[in-house]
């Protein structure tokens, strides 16, 4: 149950809150214009958090994979296909 809550928390921070405050922020009267920099950099940082988490997961998997399934790993076992020596 706890993981679901944390997942929704992350989702809320990344998605819902920024979109809501944009809807109110888009001012048009003089003196209250929308600041381009904020919109772009905000979106950039949010996408970077997602990109780096996904990147960490994928490159972490690759690194662990190469470490665990390397030939010289103590627990390395021949693959079933090696019996007939054909893969």
């Amino acid at each position, binding site marked *: 149950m706890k993981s679901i809550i944390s997942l929704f928390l992350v989702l809320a921070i990344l998605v819902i809150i920024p979109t809501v405050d944009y809807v109110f922020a888009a001012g048009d009267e003089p003196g209250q214009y929308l600041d381009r920099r904020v919109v772009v950099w905000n979106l950039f940082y949010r*996408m970077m958090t997602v990109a780096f988490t996904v990147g960490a997961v994928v490159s972490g998997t690759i690194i662990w994979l190469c470490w665990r399934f390397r030939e010289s790993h103590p627990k390395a076992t021949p693959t079933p296909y090696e019996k007939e020596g054909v893969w």
Partner: protein
Amino acid sequence: MGHHSNWPEWIYVAVVIALMVWVGAEAWNAERLIEHVPADAEIIKVTGQQWFWSFEHEDGTKEIGELHVKVGHAYKFEVTSKDVNHSFNIHDYVVLMDAIPGRINTVWFAPMEVGEHDIQCREYCGLIHYNMRGKLYIEEDTLS
């Protein structure tokens, strides 16, 4: 060949597609906000020419290489070029619009702080493209 189950692959592809939909929706929403030009924006005509920028304000004053604007006002740039493609870019304010001869592109921004920023050319335009740079001065609004 697939005598082993494929469900991890389908989950992975579903997650990737979900991420792409999120990116697309966020980008669409942010772009919609940025493209909306405030009605009372002052128009500045920007002309790119081989290796310098020239500006013309609404009241007709012309400036070469330097642009003086006032804090708190919205400005709409009408960007065009006289000879080859250039690209008008104020990096600090994420203003970027190509200057293409025979075509007028518009981009707007509303500076909120006083300051001095670089204007540069972001499209290859020949010999001195690397130094086709200008200066943007955002000054205190003396009138209001």
